[in-house]
């Protein structure tokens, strides 16, 4: 029976079950839209959590990678007539390359210096997207062609629901496998102490770089999907505020918890929708909720919950 409770089987089953029955609770396209955005944000957060939660390296610039993926897809399909899937994977490959070359010097930095460097990286990307109008349409954004596979055009919230649901399951599965592999062990080791990990023969620089690239690819793919789904992309998707939102989702849901990232993304994507009724007070309430959660549940929602359910001690194992 223990396989039922392991995150790689039981957890995935629960998630698949939720994705399968959720549509019967979604009355109209608007709800589908919110859930699809939850899924795409969750995808980015899962990747980001590998970096922040497991490897202990903060990034305040991940929205930049979303932006590059989104604009890569938009420009390659729109202005060069590429196939959407080719464009999506080519953009992801380019983002991986960029993350690789930027990551090498950036990840040597620690603490606040690392925060500053990743922040700067993200802001530079967003300024470039804002400025190069002939390619990106500037601050107003640009239209994106719909996603086609062969001759089949995929559009409409219900179709996208299943696409994003499937992609999310794969994202979780890949992340869980990374976490449980020797790579995951190396990441947790270097999170605890880089020096100790190195003394044991862990090539910390290589693993940090690897996970940085992986998380950037997650963001880029989610960005491409977001662009095709929304049929429109603006530099807002790549802004500093968006990066901060992503980190907040990760911390709120729970560091070093793949499912926590999904929950964090869900809450912070749905919450603004609920708060639109208060319009003017939306930001105040959002900021307040953020502060209160972090003050009272510093480990994040899911790990705190699991710790309460399993009576502490086991919280370390909650993935």
């Amino acid at each position: 029976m223990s396989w039922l409770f392991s995150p790689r089987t039981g957890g995935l089953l629960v998630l698949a079950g939720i994705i399968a029955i959720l549509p019967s609770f979604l009355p109209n396209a608007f709800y589908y839209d919110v859930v699809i955005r939850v899924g795409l944000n969750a995808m980015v957060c899962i990747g980001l959590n590998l970096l922040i939660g497991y490897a202990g390296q903060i990034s305040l610039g991940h929205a930049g990678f979303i932006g590059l993926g989104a604009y890569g897809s938009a420009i390659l399909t729109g202005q060069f007539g590429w196939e959407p899937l080719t464009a999506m994977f080519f953009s992801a490959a380019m983002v991986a390359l960029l993350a690789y070359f930027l990551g090498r010097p950036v990840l040597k930095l620690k603490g606040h210096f690392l925060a500053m460097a990743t922040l700067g990286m993200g802001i530079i990307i967003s300024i470039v997207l804002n400025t190069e109008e002939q390619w990106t349409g500037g601050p107003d954004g640009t239209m994106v062609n719909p996603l086609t596979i062969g001759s089949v055009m995929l559009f409409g919230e219900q179709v996208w629901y299943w696409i994003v649901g499937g992609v999310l399951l794969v994202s979780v599965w890949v992340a869980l496998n990374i976490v449980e592999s020797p790579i995951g062990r190396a990441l947790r080791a270097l999170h605890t102490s880089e020096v100790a990990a190195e003394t044991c023969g862990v090539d910390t620089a290589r693993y940090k770089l690897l996970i940085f690239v992986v998380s950037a690819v997650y963001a880029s793919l989610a960005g491409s999907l977001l662009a095709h789904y929304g049929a429109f992309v603006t530099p807002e998707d790549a802004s500093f505020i968006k990066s901060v939102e992503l980190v907040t989702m990760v911390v709120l849901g729970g560091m070093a918890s793949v499912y926590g990232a999904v929950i964090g993304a869900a809450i912070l994507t749905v919450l603004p929708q609920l708060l639109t009724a208060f319009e003017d007070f939306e930001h105040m309430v959002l900021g307040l909720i953020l502060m209160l959660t972090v003050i009272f549940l510093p480990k994040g929602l899911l790990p705190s919950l699991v710790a309460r359910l399993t009576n502490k001690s086991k919280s370390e194992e909650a993935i």
Partner: protein
Amino acid sequence: MYAEFLQFLLSGITVGATYGLVGLGFFIIYNASHVINFAQGEFVMIGGMSAVFLVDAGLPLPIAVIGAVMAAILVGVLLEKLAIEPARKSADVVTLIIITIGASIFLRGLAQVVWDKNFHSLPAFSGEEPINVFGAVIVPQYLWIMGGAAVIVAALWYFFNKVPIGKAMTATAYNPLAARLVGIRVKTVMMLSFGLAGLLGAIAGILVAPIAFTSYEAGIMLGLKGFCALILGGLSTGRAVIIGGIIVGIAEAMGAGYLSSEYKDAIAFIIILLVLFFMPQGLFGKKGTDRV
């Protein structure tokens, strides 16, 4: 040619001085608590916006300035009391960063409700009559900013080195445990550091309000540039932060003037990336070794 260069240099130093002031706010809080306060930019915004609205309400400028500074100090102290102190014991650095980010979102939202979403500007302190400096033309407000920054730095030096409570803060920055052992109340020091950061932010916000528009969002970029100044200075000394700010300001003005004004905001971050790549401890930071 020469006049143009001088023009860019002077405006760079002026803007850089405000970045330095914002950076000093970061630095004081960082020293006291090792927290990077991402709401620092919001202190700047609160200073600028309060001053604008107090002047609009008919108060004379000096009174409005005092009122605005008091408001920012109050917000700083409240932030520390209500949000940082309850979390400090249990939380790690990333969590504390998130709290200050939450606070900055909250304060921006509050500003939106209390004031509005429009852009505002403060009247210049002493007229708009341009001054000719060796061919470069500056407005009097530039002098107010540079002078204001110089006075603040001198006052801070005096406070941290001569005034007992300031010396207590310096001691706490060096070693919090030892400071407690000699009877310094670390809690008070924390509260004071947030109040001081509020004061510095507000002054920076008020000084630039006549030459740059202020709005509820004005704090974001100014805060980030102040953070740049701090990191460029290497988190080492207050003087290094001010120099870091001025370097960022000059580079920005030169870049905007000679290269591309569209990429003005990117220049600060490109410099910071290059510096961090080649000098990971900032320009003036000490090469430290980690204790394991």
